[in-house]
C-alpha cells in the first residue's frame, strides 16, 4: 500500500528547506541586532540591574557636656527583613522566623502574603530596632535562613525620661519643607537631621556625610559582592557648656513641677543647665514617632515640646522689681524714696493692692532695700509712677527685655517690654499712665522668658555686664562653623557702684529672715536673689471666675538667684508654673546653686552620692510599662559613671561602639 513511486514533490521539500533557512536567517538577524548592534545598551541595563549603590550611613556626632562626658550617643539599630530568595519557601520558614524575632507567626505569614505581589527585589521589612538576642538569632541562622537579613542604621541614644530633652532636641527625617530652605539644600530626602534644640542648631557639626558602597546584588536584593566603597564621614562631636552634674541637680529640683530652670555663668553667658517641664522622650522619635504619640505631644495643654526656658513668655512678676530698682536708683529717684505701705494705694483713681494684704499685714514705711527684700508692691507702684513708662522701658530694654537674648538655640521668643511707641504700633492707642503702675510690679503688658530674666538680673548683679547666653563655646566648635547667634557677646551697662551694692545687698536679704524666701537660705553660701509670684490673669477676671478660676489660674512662682551676690559665678532662674509662691521657686533654685557651690568647693555632692550613675538611655526596654529595673532586659544602656576618673561613658552589652 505504500508505493515507492508516489513520491512527494521534491520542489516542495526544497521549498521547505528554504523556508527553514529563511526562519533561521531572521532569528540570526534578531540575535545580531540584540547582541552586536544594541549590546552596549543592554549591557548598561544589566549593569543597572546588578549593581546597586548602597548608602553607608554616617553616625551623628556625640553631644558632650563641658567636661567631655557623653550626653547623647548613637547605637547601631538593626532592622530585620526578608529577602525573597527563590531557593526558600518563606511561608514554611515563617514559624521559625517568628519565634526567633518574637513575632506572631500569623502576622509574619500575613506580611509575606501581603507583599507577594510586590516586586521581588523589594525586601519585606519584619521588625525595626531588634534586640541583641534577636540579632544573634539572625546571625546564628545565616545558613538555615539565608533569606533573613538585617540592615543597620545608627540611631540616637538619648538620656532616658526626657532628661535634657529640650536643650538637646531630637532628630528626624528631613521634611520637604526643610529641603526647600537654603541651609538644608545639600540634604537628600531620607536624611536624618536635627529637628529642634542643639540637634537642629548645630546640625552642621553633628551630621556626618554618608558614604556609599557599590555592590553586586541578585534579583532579590541580596548583596553578592562588594565592588568598592566610599567611607562615611561621621559627624563631629559637639561640646556644650552644660555641666552634667548641675543639669542633674536642676532636673531633680524641678521634678514634680511644670516650668523651667536655667543656670548660666553671668561672667561669660555659658549655659550650665537648662530644664523644661513637662518633658518628652526623644528616644521615641529616634526610631519612629507614631501619629498618635505626636498628636498627643502637640495637643497636650502643658506643651511638653515647648522649651519654656526660652519659649515661655510670662509676666515676670516681682522679679521685674530688680530692674525697677536699678532704674529708680540710676535715675536718682529711689535712694531717698520712702513709701508707707498700708496694703495698697490709689493711682489715677484706681486702687492697687500690695500682695501683703493677703497675709493681713502691711509693710509700713518702706525704703528701697526693704522694698526689694520684702517685695513691697506699693513702693514700686509709686516708683513706676515717678519713673514713667519711658524710663522703665529704657532700662528694661537695656537689660535685654522685649528682645531675643541671642542664645544659640532655635525658636527663642522675644517677650514684650511695653512702651508708648509699642502701644501705638501694636494697638493704635495712646498709653494710659495707669498702665505704668502694673508694669512696675512686672504685671500688665510686660512679659519675659526665664532666660531673659536670668540674663538681666545676672547683669545687674555683675555690675552691668550683660552677656549673650550660649550653649557652646566658639573655640569648641570645629573650624568653619560659625555659631548661628545674633547680637554682641557682651555689653557693659554703666551702673553706679553704690547702687549696685544697695541692690545686691537687698537681694541677699531676700533669702534671709525678713525676706520673702527665708526658707531658701543656704548656710555658708553667699546666695542672693529675688522672688516673684506672677498672676496669670488679672484680679478682676479671677474674681469673675470665682473658685474655678482659682484652681486653674494659680500664680506662677519665679525666682532668680545669684551666687555670690556681687560679680556672681552663677545665675539661676527657676519658673514654677502654678507654683503659687516665689519662695517655692527660690528653694528650687537654691538646690541648683547648692549643687554648684558644692561642686566648686570639691565637696562631694549629695546628688552625686545618692546616684553614682545616671542612666541616659535604654531604648529596648521602654516597652516595660512599670519601668522597674529588670537587668535581664536591659540591652542598650548607656551609663555615665559620674565618679569614673576618665569621665567616659561605659557601655554594657551594647556590642561594638558606633563612633569609629
Amino acid at each position, binding site marked *: 500500500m*505504500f*508505493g*515507492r513511486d*508516489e*513520491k*512527494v*514533490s*521534491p520542489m*516542495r*521539500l526544497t*521549498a*521547505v*528547506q528554504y*523556508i*527553514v*533557512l529563511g*526562519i*533561521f536567517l*531572521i*532569528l*540570526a538577524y*534578531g*540575535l*545580531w*541586532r*540584540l*547582541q*552586536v548592534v*544594541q*549590546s552596549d*545598551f*543592554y*549591557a548598561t*541595563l*544589566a*549593569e543597572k*540591574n*546588578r549593581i546597586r549603590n548602597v548608602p553607608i550611613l554616617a553616625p551623628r556626632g556625640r553631644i558632650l557636656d563641658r567636661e567631655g562626658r557623653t550626653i547623647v550617643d548613637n547605637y547601631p539599630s538593626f532592622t530585620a527583613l526578608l529577602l525573597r530568595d*527563590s*531557593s*526558600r519557601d518563606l511561608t514554611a520558614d515563617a514559624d521559625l522566623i517568628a519565634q526567633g524575632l518574637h513575632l506572631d507567626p500569623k502576622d509574619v505569614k500575613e506580611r509575606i502574603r501581603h507583599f507577594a505581589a510586590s*516586586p521581588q527585589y523589594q525586601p519585606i521589612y519584619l521588625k525595626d530596632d531588634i534586640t541583641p538576642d534577636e540579632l544573634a538569632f539572625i546571625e546564628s541562622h545565616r545558613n538555615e535562613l539565608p533569606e533573613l537579613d538585617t540592615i543597620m542604621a545608627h540611631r540616637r541614644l538619648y538620656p532616658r525620661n526626657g532628661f535634657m530633652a529640650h536643650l538637646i532636641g531630637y532628630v528626624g527625617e528631613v521634611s520637604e519643607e526643610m529641603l526647600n530652605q537654603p541651609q538644608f539644600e545639600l540634604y537628600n530626602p531620607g536624611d536624618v537631621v536635627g529637628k529642634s534644640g542643639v540637634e537642629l542648631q548645630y546640625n552642621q557639626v553633628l551630621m556626618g556625610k554618608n558614604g556609599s558602597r557599590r555592590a*553586586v*546584588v*541578585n*534579583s*532579590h536584593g541580596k548583596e*553578592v559582592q562588594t565592588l568598592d566603597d566610599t567611607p562615611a564621614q561621621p559627624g563631629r562631636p559637639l561640646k556644650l557648656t552644660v555641666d552634667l552634674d548641675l543639669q542633674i541637680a536642676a532636673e531633680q529640683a524641678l521634678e514634680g513641677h511644670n516650668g523651667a530652670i536655667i543656670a548660666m555663668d553671668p561672667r561669660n553667658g555659658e549655659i550650665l543647665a537648662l530644664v523644661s517641664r513637662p518633658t518628652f522622650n526623644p528616644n521615641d522619635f529616634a526610631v519612629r514617632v507614631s501619629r498618635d504619640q505626636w498628636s498627643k505631644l502637640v495637643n497636650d495643654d502643658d506643651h511638653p515640646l515647648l522649651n519654656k526656658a526660652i519659649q515661655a513668655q510670662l509676666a515676670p512678676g516681682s522679679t521685674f522689681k530688680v530692674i525697677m530698682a536699678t532704674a529708680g536708683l540710676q535715675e536718682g529717684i529711689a535712694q531717698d524714696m520712702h513709701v508707707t505701705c498700708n496694703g495698697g494705694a490709689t493711682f489715677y483713681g484706681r486702687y492697687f493692692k500690695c500682695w501683703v494684704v493677703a497675709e493681713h499685714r502691711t509693710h509700713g514705711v518702706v525704703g528701697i532695700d526693704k522694698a526689694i527684700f520684702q517685695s513691697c508692691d506699693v513702693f514700686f507702684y509709686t516708683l513706676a509712677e515717678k519713673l514713667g513708662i519711658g524710663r522703665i522701658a529704657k532700662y528694661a530694654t537695656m537689660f535685654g527685655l522685649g528682645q531675643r537674648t541671642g542664645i544659640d538655640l532655635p525658636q527663642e521668643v522675644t517677650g514684650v517690654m511695653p512702651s508708648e511707641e509699642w502701644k501705638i504700633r501694636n494697638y493704635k492707642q495712646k498709653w494710659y499712665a495707669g498702665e505704668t503702675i502694673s508694669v512696675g510690679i512686672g504685671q500688665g503688658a510686660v512679659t519675659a522668658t526665664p532666660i531673659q530674666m536670668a540674663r538681666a538680673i545676672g547683669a545687674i548683679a555683675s555690675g552691668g555686664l550683660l552677656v549673650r547666653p550660649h550653649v557652646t563655646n566658639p573655640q569648641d566648635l570645629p573650624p568653619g562653623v560659625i555659631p548661628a547667634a545674633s547680637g554682641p557677646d557682651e555689653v557693659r551697662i554703666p551702673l553706679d557702684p553704690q547702687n549696685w551694692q544697695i541692690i545686691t545687698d537687698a537681694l541677699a536679704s531676700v533669702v534671709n529672715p525678713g525676706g520673702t524666701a527665708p526658707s531658701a537660705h543656704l548656710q555658708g553660701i553667699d546666695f542672693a536673689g529675688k522672688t516673684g509670684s506672677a498672676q496669670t490673669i488679672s484680679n478682676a477676671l479671677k474674681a469673675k471666675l470665682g473658685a474655678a478660676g482659682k484652681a486653674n489660674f494659680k500664680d506662677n512662682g519665679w525666682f532668680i538667684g545669684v551666687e555670690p551676690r556681687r560679680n556672681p559665678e552663677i545665675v539661676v532662674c527657676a519658673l514654677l508654673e502654678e507654683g503659687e509662691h516665689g519662695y517655692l521657686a527660690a528653694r528650687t533654685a537654691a538646690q541648683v546653686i547648692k549643687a554648684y557651690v558644692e561642686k566648686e568647693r570639691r565637696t562631694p555632692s549629695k546628688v552625686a552620692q545618692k546616684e553614682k550613675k545616671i542612666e541616659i538611655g535604654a531604648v529596648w526596654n521602654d516597652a516595660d510599662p512599670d519601668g522597674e529595673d529588670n537587668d535581664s532586659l536591659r540591652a542598650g544602656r548607656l551609663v555615665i559613671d559620674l565618679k569614673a576618673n576618665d569621665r567616659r561613658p561605659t557601655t554594657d552589652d551594647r556590642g561594638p561602639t558606633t563612633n569609629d
Partner: protein
Amino acid sequence: MSRYISFRDFDWVLFIFVLMVCALGVTEIRSATVHTKFAGAHIRQIYWILAGIASMFLMSLVNYQLLLERVHWMYIAAIASLMMVMIFGHRYLGAKRWIKMPGGWHFQPSEWVKLILILAVAKYFNDLHQRELTWTDFIKAGAIVGVPMLMVLTQPDLGTALTYIPIAIMGLFLGGLRAKQALTVVMLAGLMMPLAWHGLKPYQRDRLTSFLEPEADSQGSGYQVIQSLIAVGSGGIWGSSAGSQTHLSFLPVPQTDFIFAAFAEEHGFVGALSVMLLYFIVLMRLTQNAQTAPDRAGTFVVMGVVAVLSFHILVNIGMVVGFMPVTGIPLPLMSYGGSSVLFMFLALGIVMNIRMRRFVN
C-alpha cells in the same frame, strides 16, 4: 527482494548533532541553576536524555508502517487521554495539563498527542496519493489536527496547541495545497483574529501585549521579556563573563523556556549562532532523510517532525530575541523538561526507523 534493517543504516550523523545540542543544553541548565532551588536539574535532564536515547533505539526497531496502519487506534487513544485530562487532570498554576500517575509521576498527554498527530496526518495524506487537494480533504485534514488542538486549548495550553498547527500546514503543503486554497485560508484566518482575541484568557492577552510593549508593565508580565532581552543583549559578541542576568536570577526560571536567553548571555552572539547552526544541520539532515524515505508516508512523518521542530525553534528563539510573544514553548533538546525530551527522541526514533528502511521493501 528484501533487506533486514540494520544499525549500519542508522543516521549516526544526525544522532551526534542531536547529542551535541543536548550536551550544550545540559551545561547551560547546570550553569543557570547551580545556586538556586533548581540545583541538580541538569542531572535529572541527563537521566531524561538517557531515557530518551533508549526509547529512540527501541522506537527505531518498530516498523513505522505497522504504526501507521494502527494510527486510527492511537488517535482514539490520544483523544481519550485528552479527555482524561479534562476530567481527572491535575490543576497546577491555573491549568489542567497533567494526569497524576502512580509513583509521583506527572504525565502530560498533549506532548505525545503531537507525535500521534504527525503519524495521523502522514497516514491521511499518504492515503490521498498524488491527486489534487479538494476542499473536503482540506477540512478533513484540518479536523484531524483541529479536534485535539481545541481540547488542548481548553486546558488551557495555548503554546502546545499552537505547535499542532505546523503539523497540519506541513501536511497540506506537501500534500499538494494549491496557492488559491492557501490564500483563502490565510484571509479567513485574518478575519478570525478578532474573534480569537476574545477567546484568549487575560494572562494570554497580557503576554501578547507585553510582547508588543514590554516597558508598559516592567514588573509584571513584561518582566520576563525585558530581562530576557537584557540577558541576550548584554551577552554581546563573545558572551558576558559576569552572566549576571542568569546567575543573579534576574531572568526567572532560566532553565526551561528561557534557556536560549541564558545561553546567549553566557556565550554571546558567536555561541548562540553556533547553537542555531547545530539546529540547522539537524533540520537539514532530517529533510534529507525525508527525501530518501522509502515511501510517501515516511516523507510525511519526517517532515512532520521537521515542522514541529522548526516551529518550536522559531517561536522560542523568536521570543528570546523579542520577535515573538511569550507562549511557554520550550526549546526542544535544550530546555529542561522530561516530556519535551522524550517527545523529541521518540520522534527521532521513528525517523531512524524510516531511514533504516530506505532500502527495505
